[in-house]
């Protein structure tokens, strides 16, 4: 999803640059509290890991591959504010040293991959934590779904930006279909990695997971005289209980989807509403097939049913959430069985 120089027009680049600068600025202020406790080493390590994870191009069928984003994972580990900084750092390094993503598009890239994935991932995680049983293990399914949702949403946002400021006009519906269909698959991979990493961290060092800090069990200590006492575990900075997370998360997700549908509707070609089921299926199929010999970012073939990207986008998000909730249910049943 790394945007190169000259991909979007100047106003879009500047606007997203401003968004990114604002987000980073606010995060810098808010992250200080998180960072004072945990230190930059952990944030730096998370950054290194996100970087590594973005290098892993994993196959998504038909001989193609996509790369992971890591925003939701970072948010769960170091907290949302620090996570924005972490993602921005990663993108800056990629732009400067690896020529991955253009420098004039840095703002765009930070907005898409740094801010949106973190916000979506974190809100979804927090919201699910409200719903799931109150124990540390719940963080794994919650964040996994956060990760799963965050990727297609970022893809939708990409499409939205393209609709506003793409250098060339192409049917936004098709682009949205391809991007979202594609990134649902990437999101699945992201979910797998996120789950693997988080479950290992939760199993051995739950105190390191920002999102789980308030859920830790107390520890039992035996002192010199053999007396037992119970103490609260190490709990540097725990997130505040968020009551409205669910609403905010869902609202945010749909806001992005909706805004994009607006742009898409304004576009003459994107207005043919096809049945939801059919639309989604062909979207998924297109992205898997049309881009098969090509690396990333395939654009679906020509001549297929014209699908409203917005609709497909919203459906994609819905399906993702549904699948995610189902997985969460399963996972929490399984982890409950294990702890028993």
């Amino acid at each position, binding site marked *: 999803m790394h945007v190169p120089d000259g991909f979007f027009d100047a106003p879009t680049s500047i606007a997203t640059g401003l968004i990114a600068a604002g987000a980073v600025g606010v995060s810098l202020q808010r992250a200080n509290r998180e960072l004072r406790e945990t230190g930059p080493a952990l944030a730096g390590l998370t950054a290194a890991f996100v970087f590594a994870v973005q290098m892993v191009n994993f196959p998504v069928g038909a001989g193609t591959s996509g790369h992971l984003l890591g925003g939701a994972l970072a948010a769960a580990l170091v907290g949302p504010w620090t996570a924005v900084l972490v993602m921005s750092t990663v993108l800056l390094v990629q732009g400067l040293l690896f020529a991955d993503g253009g420098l004039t598009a840095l703002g765009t890239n930070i907005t898409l991959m740094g801010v949106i994935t973190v916000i979506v991932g974190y809100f979804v995680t927090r919201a699910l934590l409200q719903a799931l049983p109150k124990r540390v293990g719940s963080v794994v399914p919650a964040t996994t779904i956060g990760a799963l949702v965050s990727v297609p949403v970022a893809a939708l946002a990409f499409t939205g930006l393209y609709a506003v400021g793409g250098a060339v*006009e192409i049917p936004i519906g098709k682009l949205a279909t391809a991007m979202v269909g594609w990134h649902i698959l990437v999101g699945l991979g992201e979910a797998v990695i996120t789950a693997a990493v988080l479950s290992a961290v939760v199993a051995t060092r739950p105190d390191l997971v920002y999102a789980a800090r308030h859920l830790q069990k107390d520890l039992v200590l035996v002192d010199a005289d053999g007396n037992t006492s119970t103490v609260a575990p190490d709990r540097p900075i725990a997130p505040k209980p968020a009551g409205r997370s669910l609403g905010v998360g869902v609202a945010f997700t749909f806001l992005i989807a909706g805004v994009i549908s607006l742009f898409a509707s304004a576009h003459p070609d994107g207005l043919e509403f096809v049945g939801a089921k059919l639309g989604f299926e062909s979207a998924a199929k297109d992205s898997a097939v049309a881009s098969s010999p090509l690396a*990333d970012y395939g654009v679906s073939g020509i001549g297929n049913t014209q699908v409203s990207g917005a609709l497909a986008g919203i459906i994609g998000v819905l399906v993702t959430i549904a699948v995610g909730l189902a997985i969460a249910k399963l996972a929490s049943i399984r982890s409950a069985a294990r702890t028993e």
Partner: protein
Amino acid sequence: MTASAGDGLLVAVDSRIHRLPAQVKIVALFLFVLAVVATPAAVVWAFALYAVLLVGCVVLAKLPPATVMRRMAVETPFIVFALLLPFVATGPQIEVLGLSVSESGVFGAWNVLAKGTLGVVAAIVLSATTAPRELLAGLERLRLPSTLIAILSFMVRYLSVVSDDLHRMRIARESRGYTGGRAGHLKAVAAGVGALFVRSFERGERVHLAMQARGYTGRMPQLTHSGATRNQWLEGLAISLTAFAIAVAARVVGL
């Protein structure tokens, strides 16, 4: 143990460009890319001039052309995108080689390709001539917020820890009779990725504590004093300024 990410992408030769302070190179890179992006896509000669400038840099920096070509591979996804543009874009169609393609698509493809490629090559020149550590010092001199610098410096350090760890895991695995092949390795890495993370995480934590034990309070002490002289600034920015002149000329003169 072998290929260490600690040295980043530096091509270790000595050249004028290698010797420039990092902050000069970073600023020069930004200005250059800005100039390129601001140039109307239609002014083909301007892009040719930019390319000539960049090739000059590559030669001046004594970079092996093969290395530069290889690193340009990051661009592939967008080349693909660009190649598709003429077919999917809307608007008036034109005939090329018997195919009907979108005029604006062809134009857009050229736009994306030309600007993207120039940006990528410029970044490659920076990364091949600057060690990560100098880059950090440069960014610090450019007053990047210290929090970001701190994250960045640990990230650079941990890139080598994690990649070394991955490398070690592979070796430890192979030296115990593991013959999974490539796919098997991926599977094993996926299974081990959690353990790898915790392990690196804890190492990160211990290192942070070791730093605190030696008086670290959140700011890395400035150990190198790499202020740039005015001549170095002039030298470094010469190319960017030329690029700006080209951009202005392109806007004024047009085709």
